């Protein structure tokens, strides 16, 4: 009968898998294994997450309410009262969400204004296909190797030399990043690799 053989083969397979998994585990401790991509959700601060959850729940409630009303399950009077209550709550939540991002919105608007103020030359520039995504017109050239860099770069990305660039602007950006609504315990998830594009916080 071949059945005992089946079980011994299964056992052997389990053993091989275990060895492979342990190997992977040790590699991960060493830091040589691939690291999971960071998801945007993981970087949300608990407060913001709670607000978003609440918003989803309220939207769900509003939808169910209007459905129940259409279905004739609740009276017009109940519907109006509940609808207004849910809406008031939802408005509060939306407002709270706005308040939280207000400083960043201001910064973004300032940056936009700054960019627009540079005149029509910039918007008229053809969209760059450069994988760095920065329009060359705005870049600053490195004095040492003459490579192009981002406008706010402080060091050349080609040769590492210090750039004369706009330190104040760069400082501002760094501050903005520090204040971002990020749960700090997860902000430095990756040691073994760079965070994926998906992990960037808006």
């Amino acid at each position, binding site marked *: *009968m071949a*059945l*005992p053989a089946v*079980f*011994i083969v*299964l*056992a052997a397979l*389990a*053993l091989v*898998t*275990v060895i492979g*998994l*342990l190997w*992977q*585990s040790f590699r*991960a*401790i060493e*830091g040589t*294994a691939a*690291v*999971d*991509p960071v*998801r945007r*959700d*993981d970087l949300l601060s608990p407060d913001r*997450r*709670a607000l978003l*959850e*609440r*918003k989803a*729940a309220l*939207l769900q*409630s*509003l*939808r169910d*309410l209007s459905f*129940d009303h*259409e*279905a*004739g*399950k*609740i*009276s017009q*009077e*109940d519907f109006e009262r*509940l609808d*207004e*209550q849910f*809406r*008031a709550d*939802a*408005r509060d939540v*939306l*407002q709270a969400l706005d308040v939280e991002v207000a400083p960043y919105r201001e910064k973004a608007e300032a940056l936009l204004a700054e960019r627009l103020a540079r005149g029509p030359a910039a918007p008229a520039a053809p969209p760059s296909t450069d994988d760095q995504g920065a329009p060359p017109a705005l870049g600053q050239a490195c004095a040492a190797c003459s490579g192009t860099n981002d406008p706010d770069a402080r060091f050349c990305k080609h040769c590492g030399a210090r750039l004369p660039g706009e330190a104040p602007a760069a400082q501002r950006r760094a501050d903005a990043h520090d204040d971002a609504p990020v749960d700090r*315990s*997860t902000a430095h*998830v*990756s*040691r073994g690799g760079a965070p994926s594009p*998906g992990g960037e916080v808006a």
Partner: protein
Amino acid sequence: MTTLDIPFLGSLVLCLVLVCASYTFVVSVATGRGRPHLLPAARYGALATCGFVAFALFLLAYAFQTHDFQIRYVARYSDRSMPWWYLVASLWGGQDGSLLWWTFLLSGYTVAVTLWMRGRYRELQPWMFATLMTIFGFFCITMLFAANPFATTVGAAPLDGEGLNPLLQNYWMAIHPPSLYMGFVGWSIPFAILVGALITGRLSREWIDASRLWAMVAWSFLSLGLLLGCLWSYEELGWGGYWAWDPVENASFMPWLVGTAFLHSILTQERYGMMRVWNVFLLCLTFFMTIFGTFLTRSGLIASVHSFARSDIGIYFVWYLGFLLIACTALIIWRLPKLRSRNTIDSMLSREFAFLLNNWILLGMMVFVLVATTAPLLSDWLMNEKVTVGPPFYNKWMVPLGIILLLLMGIGPLTSWRKTTGRGFWRAALVPAVFGLVVFSLHVAFGARLGYPPVISSDEIYDTATGRALAALFSVAPLLVTTVGAFVIGTVVQEFWRGVRVRMRSKGESPTTALVRLVSRAKRRYGGYIIHVGIVIMFIGFAGSAYDIEKEAALQPGAAMHVGDYAVRYDGARMELDPSKRMLFTDMTLLDKKGDDLGEISPAKFIYATHPDMPTTEVAIRSRLDNDVYVIMSTVDPSTKRGTFRVIVRPLVAWIWLGGMIVLFGCVLTMSPSVKELLAATKGAQTERRMRRRLAVALTALFLLAFGLSVPALVQAQSNSSSSLMAGTVIMHDPLEKQLFGRLLCQCGDCARLPLTECTCSWAQREREKIRAELAAGVSPGAIENSYRAQFGEAALSVPSDEGFGRAMWALPVTLLVAAGAGIFFVGRRWRRAGDALTPVTPDGMLMSDIDYDRRLDDELRRFEEDA
């Protein structure tokens, strides 16, 4: 031939599981404590632990297949004549192996949840792994030190094993325990996620989103396991019932009750963030109950028909339970500040409050079962006397609670979130209530004529006012069940109908399209309603037991007996042989009132070569929707062929299985991914991978459930070949006798204190003869019961008397229930006042920005609608 030293290797692997689990625990804790880059290491470690467990299980399976009787467990639970599938089933046939099996299932769940989560919930994951590893560690330690399935026999290996108990040698053994274990073990996953949430303090909706699916999977398997347990008991054990309130059954029923409460209560938290502490408590309690139930039945502290050998694993469970209790309490108290929530409700006539009441009754039932199940322990401890509580106690007390639950099932869906005005509620309740009344009057008018009288006679379990009140309630129970059941079904049908009508009107869809889209857009809601319908149908099946007709007779070949609307003709006996057993069949023909042939049935006795002293009773069942004819052959004289038979006509039993299937269908519906989710698989590789994983999980669950669903069909096909617990059969002459004997427990000292209706020992036989003589002499059953008690003590009765400890048995749960009910109303009123204090926003007071936000809200709603 074999050079593998399986016992040594097996024990070594168990040690390695422990080592690997410890390693993973350490890495997980490190991950949780600020080294998030170690998460993959923890994950691989957890998977490796599971791999080791699988390795150990396959080794044991190999040992069974190769008849390695050097291993004690293999020698005790198998022999050379057993076919391979029983050799596989033997893996969970005994104590030691079932612990390994438990660990194996936990591995399966761990692998599934790891793949399912992958990069999500990464804050919770490390602590989830750490918690799961402590559970692995606990089972490993218990196996290594107290119940090692790889332990060797003392002395030389026997030539042949003892063989699996013939009662377990049937097809049920292969599916009932695994399913029940799946239900028990499954609760570990939501519990581990919860511990993660408690430790990290991320106590918003996140952990509920993460654990909901797993709680539902566990609940579904627990329900399936309970249902299969009923089927097994009914088809195989040959005593004519499906639920005996045995401690093992209760042990699985209690987590089911708490788990059901949890699944309802989380809905309130999802919507309003309320009742956070309560939900955490419920989930902890559910997990605790799964372990506590295992402890109760495995430690040998409470006698049960599911007699797992008494062993010393009890103390390990006590330690673990103590650890769980302290750890959970400490975690909850520590996180209490973060668990506080805005507790206001607008009205007591709201969905929130209905869920609160649902929790109240479910937990009340749980407390009842708990107190009665642990009565032997409590009474032993308090009064040095083991009081046992038998089925009559439960049957009487659970009926009122069950009917309240049924009523709440009808009221709940009629309420809406936050507040329903009284007028609105009554308008919604109108159609279902009318439907209920129609069924009520139909039952009253035609019930008796169809054989289902609305009022039945009921015995009193106590000779007091309580006993009379219970009996009165019990006697109208069938009518209450049909009326309230109709009301519940009315509400559900109304919900479906209204939903479909809206879609037909607003979207112009055909009725079928509207129904499909309606359900697929709110699967949890409508799946839940379908589960409710299933439960109602099961209740009707339970109520059918009130109409049982039972008769016993000794027949010569050719003679017939009449039971209810049927006649059973005994045609003759025959003996058949197969390698492992002798089979004695008695062929009978079932006839209806007019004498028409309804088919052949063959109840039998099987005598296994390994256990010649335990002939098993094979019942024959003819199952129809209106009633089952259940035939048990008690004895047959080999020379004269004269046989004694017990025939039970059991109305509506099939409804229980039908209702169970509807419940499982509802479960599948609730958990299944929607078409949209499946189609979303095309949206990029990342999503696609995730979707494929979800699909895999869903399909596995579906497959397992479908497997479970196909079972009843298979049963029909083989209902003539089954086995039984009852080695002999006791003959009851009339219902009065049956009621009385059911309350008196055998005192022979050998059996697990079976009631006199069941015990077959000579002591019970003598006692029955004595009591029959007294009954014939006109002594009242109450007097006989009292003298029995005076002679053998309180512990000799299956229903404790209504005084002293016996009264506390019901008074304690009832007091708790009433107090909790009052507490809920009190708290509800306070919350409502807190809600009233908040000033309502009126449209007139709206600011410009509010109008702005309103517009944005409408946009969001539109998008939300499209996404759904």
